[in-house]
Structures are given as structure tokens and as C-alpha cells.
């Protein structure tokens, strides 16, 4: 009966996704019916505190957190592995705990390494 139950449980999720999109669409459409539209070149220019914008925003620049994102990706996957373990934690007993302790240990060493290599610093 599991597949049926999944369907029952996730039906509201699917419907709410559709409702959400439709709601935003309808509100934007309603507003289009009512609002004025008087576009001028100044209005359509990029907002830069009333100055004429200098250059384009899409240039090469240091996004600073590239290394942080790499570390994040690894950690996120590791954390995902921790969830099923946590759900079954009370059943698997001490052995399961110490096995996972090794896993977390590796994670801590990884964090310490990233820290030591200054991957977590904002100013690179």
C-alpha cells in the first residue's frame, strides 16, 4: 500500500504547487488590468541611485565564496547520509553509533582542513 499512500500524501504538494503558480499569475494579471503604463527611457533605465548607470552589471568579478560552495556541497551530501542513520538510531545501538562516529570524524577532519587552507575566508 506504500505507493498509494505516497500518492495521497503528496497530492496536496502537487496541487499547492499549481495553486501557487496560478495565484501569482492571477495577481499579476489583475494588476495588469488596473495599473497605469507610462514608460519612459529614464524609468526603464537600471536603478543606480539616480545616477546614470556606469557600465553593465554582468562583468567578471570575484564571487568570493566559490570554495565555500564546494565545501557546502560535500557537507550537504554527508548530512543527507546522516538522516536515515538518525531515524534508525535507537534500533542500531552502540555499533551503529560508533560506525557513524568514524563518518563524522572524517567530516570534522575535512572541515578542519578547509579551515586550515583558508577556504572559509570571505576575502580571498
Amino acid at each position: 500500500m506504500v505507493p498509494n499512500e505516497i500518492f495521497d500524501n503528496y497530492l496536496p504538494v502537487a496541487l499547492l504547487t499549481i495553486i501557487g503558480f496560478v495565484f501569482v499569475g492571477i495577481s499579476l494579471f489583475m494588476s495588469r488590468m488596473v495599473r497605469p503604463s507610462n514608460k519612459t527611457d529614464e524609468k526603464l533605465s537600471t536603478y543606480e541611485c539616480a545616477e546614470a548607470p556606469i557600465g553593465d552589471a554582468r562583468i567578471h568579478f570575484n564571487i568570493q565564496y566559490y570554495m565555500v560552495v564546494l565545501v557546502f556541497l560535500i557537507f550537504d551530501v554527508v548530512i543527507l547520509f546522516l538522516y536515515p542513520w538518525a531515524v534508525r538510531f535507537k534500533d542500531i545501538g552502540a555499533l551503529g553509533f560508533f560506525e557513524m562516529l568514524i563518518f563524522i570524524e572524517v567530516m570534522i577532519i575535512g572541515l578542519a582542513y578547509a579551515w586550515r587552507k583558508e577556504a572559509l575566508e570571505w576575502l580571498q
Partner: protein
Amino acid sequence: MLYSGMWTGDTMTNAYELIINILTAIGVYDTIFGVFKSYGMEFVLKLIIVLVTLAVLFGFVLVTVMFLTWMERKVAAMVQSRYGPMVTGPRGLLQPVMDGIKLIGKEDIVPAKADRFVFNLAPYLAFVPAILVFVPLPFGESLIISDLRVGLLYIIAISALSPISILLAGWASNNKYTLLAAMRAVAQDISYTLPLALTAIAVVMLTGSLSTVDIVNAQSGTWFGIIPKWFIFLQPLAFILFLIASIAEMGRIPFDFQESESELIAGFFTEYSGMKFAMYFLAEYAHLFAVSGILVTIFLGGWNGPVLPGIPVVITSLVYFILKTYAVVFFAMWLRDTVPRIRIDQLLNIGWKIMIPLALLNLIVTGFLITAGVMR
């Protein structure tokens, strides 16, 4: 074996079954069901009932958001010794309605240099995840849209979608301020998702289930008849970390890098106006309420509270949940009006060098205490 744990747990009643129970109690359900069955369309009836529950949820969220915008101004006014909105309606309660009307009538500007498609798509992607988070949120005994067995994981996953819309909005606007705000917001969001997920794991270890209903049920009862069995007392460190991380997830002061009004105009939605701006506003406050609700569910006992004789549990539990959630919301608003913004490098340092090690430590200590049989 390890993975089958995802599928354990009892099927609890949800809002869908509540409606069926009410209809049966009135005595009309069998008639309605018979009508639909005679056409072979039981599924349509199910769809209608689910849609009714979703409509109630949607209405509740919209009213809550309106109330929260009013409350935000009133709390700010209280802190700054002034009145706040007072003119429209009693004590300015109708101010959000007027704001809505005003925003509908505002001209919609798409900057000439912007990427039109992405620019228009971003408000949709901001609003939909904000409302989707409410599906496994238990508002009260059996007042839950759907008790997902992976509820907690679902909540964390859906809230992790918000950086996508922020990044899209910031990039599509083709504005330096929005781009900077978006980059900062993403750095912040990813840094604080980790402690959020790690502290939630410690709670899952105690409950043995990811279902939000199971988590709330695990917190029913008291120790020595006085102290409620809330996880805040078993996991004080996890509670503090989760609170800080969730305030960062909401993007509120002291972690409001996606907005930072004094530096980046209005952050990533600088170029948005009219209804698209309103969508971001709705999403932000819906998220504030949802995250507060999650905090209450995980650490503050959810809808648990003293049972009052004579009043249905459905109503008392809803009142307890709402009261607790508004207490957390009030705390977040209070914080906004009293604490300065921290610096971006400090933000990353707190996230990676203090909160994640502490969360890991909390995880190990919790695991050790449970294995030793001290905590259960």
C-alpha cells in the same frame, strides 16, 4: 535496513480526514460519496476535499501575512516609542489591505537591460516554495495538510529552494546592487542550511522519525508533572543554533544581507515594483511564519499544551500552536529593531567556524547520551 526507517510511523489523521469526519458527523458524507460513486468519480470527491483544505491553508497564510506586516510596524513602533499605523481601521489594522490595493495599482517596471523572462519568473519561484513549506506543518491535532513521512527533510529541502529565486532575481535585474545582494544572500543561505540540518538531525535521533506529527507527539507529557517534555530542554544547544540559523534563513536582521537597506537599496528586489514586489513581500512574511512554526514544532512542543476540559483538542491545540509561533515571530521582530547588522565575513565565520563545529559536537554528545541510555 537503514533506509526502511524513512517509511515507518503511523498514519495520523490529517485535515482531509478531519473534513470527512465532520461531514460524517453531520450525516451528509455518505450521501455525497454515494452521488460521486454512482458516477464512478470517487477521485473527484477526494480532489475537492483536498482543494478545500488547501484553500483554507491559503486563506490562513494570506491573512497571517497581512497581520504580520501590520504587527512588524507595530512592534517597530513600540520599540521606538511611537504609534505606528493608526488611521486605516481600528488601530491601523486595515493598513495591509490598503497596501495591497496600492500595490495592485502600481506601474510595473521591467528595466530595459533586464532579462525579461528570468525577471518575470523569479517572483513565481519565490512565492511557491514559501507556500509549499506549510504542507507538513502541524497547526494542531490533526490540523495538518499532509503528514509526510519525510516531513522534516521536506521542509529543509523546500526552504533551500529560496536562494534560487534570489539569485535569478538578482542576476536578471542587471543591476550591481541586486547582483551583490544576491551573491551575499546565497553565501549566507548555504552557510546556514548546514547548522539547520545538523541540529535537526539531533532531534530526529531522539524521535526516530522525520514526520512532524511524530516529533510533536514525542514532546507530549511532562517531567515531574511540571516541566513540559519539549526538546528545548533536552537539546538547549541545538535550540539556540537552530534559532540563529533560522533567523539567518529568513534573512532578517542581524543577518539581512539579502536586503541590507542601508547598503544595497532594497537588496535583490531593488528593480521590482507593483505586484511582483508584493509577491516577494508575501513570500518573506510567509517564510517568517513558516520558519517560526517549524521552530515551535521541533523544539517548543508544537501544539502540545494543557488540555482544557470541555473544549475540543483541535481548537486548543491550534490556539497553543498559534500563540507559540507568534511568540517566536515577536522575538524575530524584536531582534530586528534592537540589533545591528553584522559584517558579511563575520556572518560566514559564525556559520562555519562556530555553529557547524558546535552542531557536530551536539550531534556526537546526543548520540553518546542516547547510546549510554541517559537520554531517551
